């Protein structure tokens, strides 16, 4: 770390255009993907990765920005999925109308859990409580009888169309997913550059100090937990309609662990970290023709190595390398580090 002088106008312009170029690249890549390969399998994996990405951004705001790790993210997806599915079966609610219900349900559950667990206890106990909640949620769903479909779960109706576009076609579903992914990235970006994001980071860095500058940390922690629930709820509904079937096993402990793994590997504080994490986890085995078991061994090992060696995730690690390589050039243009 070194002291840097004020950024010059040129430096600021370079940073802005780099950011815009990065965003453009990501958008174009995501939109163009189906044209590069017409494979059904590719799109199917891409959709799964996209759904994971949406929920990962919720986790990234919660953990990356605020420093709270939740093991209940998969369970919150379940809350959203079950809410939407049960409402669809009970009152015939369509895909689009079920989204707000699902998101609010997940946020509410997160809120209740947060009110009880975020005020009193330490970060480690919070993780354990969310873990326990995840396990509890599964048990409740399994024991819900025909209302929740018990262990076998519930079937989900087809998604239907929007503006005349049939979303049951996989390519169109893919674009729907991309839409929500981009929206998630945008929301995360706006939060991270806003005063609210700064507040969350302050809570992460030093909660005691945050309180002494009049930040009501309890309120913000609960609120951001609910926010992560919103993302999870949305992802849950999308996933329900993609798989056309939901069951408690989807929302158990292991999926939550796996989500945490994805966000850590990608880098929870980087803007494209969650996206990268999901893409790596879902596509690497395809690209390298890895057996899923071998792939998971690799991921477990990767997570351990990343945490021990690259605390800002893989993306962070690459950026660090890039920065070190281009340090001289940047000093000339007076860019400040992020």
């Amino acid at each position: 770390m070194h002291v840097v002088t004020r950024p010059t106008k040129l430096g600021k312009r370079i940073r802005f255009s780099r950011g815009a170029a990065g965003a453009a690249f990501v958008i174009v890549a995501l939109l163009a993907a189906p044209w590069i390969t017409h494979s059904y399998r590719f799109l199917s994996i891409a959709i799964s990765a996209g759904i994971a990405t949406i929920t990962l951004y919720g986790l990234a705001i919660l953990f990356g920005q605020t420093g709270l790790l939740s093991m209940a993210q998969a369970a919150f997806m379940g809350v959203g999925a079950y809410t939407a599915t049960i409402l669809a079966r009970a009152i015939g609610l369509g895909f689009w109308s079920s989204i707000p219900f699902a998101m609010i349900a997940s946020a509410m559950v997160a809120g209740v859990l947060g009110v009880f667990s975020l005020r009193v206890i330490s970060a480690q106990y919070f993780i354990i409580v969310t873990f326990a909640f995840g396990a509890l949620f599964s048990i409740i769903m399994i024991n819900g009888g025909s209302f929740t479909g018990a262990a076998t779960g519930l079937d989900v109706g087809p998604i239907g169309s929007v503006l005349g576009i049939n979303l049951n076609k996989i390519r169109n579903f893919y674009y729907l997913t991309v839409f929500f992914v981009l929206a998630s990235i945008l929301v995360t970006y706006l939060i991270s550059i806003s005063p609210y994001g700064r507040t969350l980071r302050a809570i992460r860095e030093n909660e005691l100090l945050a309180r002494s500058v009049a930040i009501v940390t309890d309120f913000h922690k609960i609120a951001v937990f609910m926010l992560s629930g919103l993302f999870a709820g949305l992802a849950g509904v999308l996933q329900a309609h993609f798989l056309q079937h939901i069951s408690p096993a989807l929302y158990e402990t292991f999926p939550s662990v796996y989500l945490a793994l994805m966000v850590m590997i990608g880098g929870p504080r980087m803007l494209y970290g969650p996206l990268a994490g999901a893409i790596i986890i879902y596509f690497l085995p395809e690209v390298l023709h890895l057996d899923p078991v071998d792939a998971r061994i690799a991921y477990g090992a990767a997570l351990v190595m990343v945490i021990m060696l690259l605390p800002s995730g893989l993306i962070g690690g690459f950026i660090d390398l890039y920065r070190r390589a281009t340090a001289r050039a940047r000093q000339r243009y007076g860019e400040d580090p992020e």
Partner: protein
Amino acid sequence: MSLRISGLQKTFDGVVALAGVDIDVTLDKILGIVGPNGSGKTTLVNVVTGTFAPTAGHVTWEGVDITGKPASAIARLGIARSFQQAMTFSGLTVEENVQVAWDHRSRRRRMRSLWTSPDELLELVGLSDARSSIAGALPFGNARQLGIAICLATLPKLLFLDEPGAGLSDAELEPLTELIKQLHSMGIGVCIIDHNMNMISALCHRLVVLDFGTKIAEGAPSAVLNDPKVREVYLGEDL
């Protein structure tokens, strides 16, 4: 406009840190709170500013009972404190550190505030050039300055400085003393908790001496420092 501490007690698991303290703090006189290690000085600050709730006693600020209120509420009411360990938001930049406190400054006091932007505060503590440095990488003296800037960004009426001089060289103490005098002349109440008798005598108009959680002396520095009780408690120390 003042702070009244009456009968304040704090016990931790059977250890009595404060055994009933009464202090009046006014904004026009710089108050020094001194005492040997373990006399309860920092506990007093912690209890008054809301980090802990007292076991007994009351704290009244501007006529309102603030006993047991959480730290964030007390900060909002205009009492700020700096920490002994030079606490900062270590992963954020210097300017973000001050900015985040500034974001949460009291709406009511913003109208009458002497400062219009966090930049002025950075200027005041001499950290303008380091604005983009990561707070965790700052040398100790600078981190201290940042801590004070963060406090000031909450637009306090009363400022508790917990051992502001500790760990600073004589060269660094000069600007700190000047800064405190400047803040006082701006109308901000200051209460300094410290050991450093030179700084205390130079700055404070009134002193309170604590020992084992009780007040053993109070008054003008010259009187207090010559009090035999006080000398006894500081046996061997250079007053």
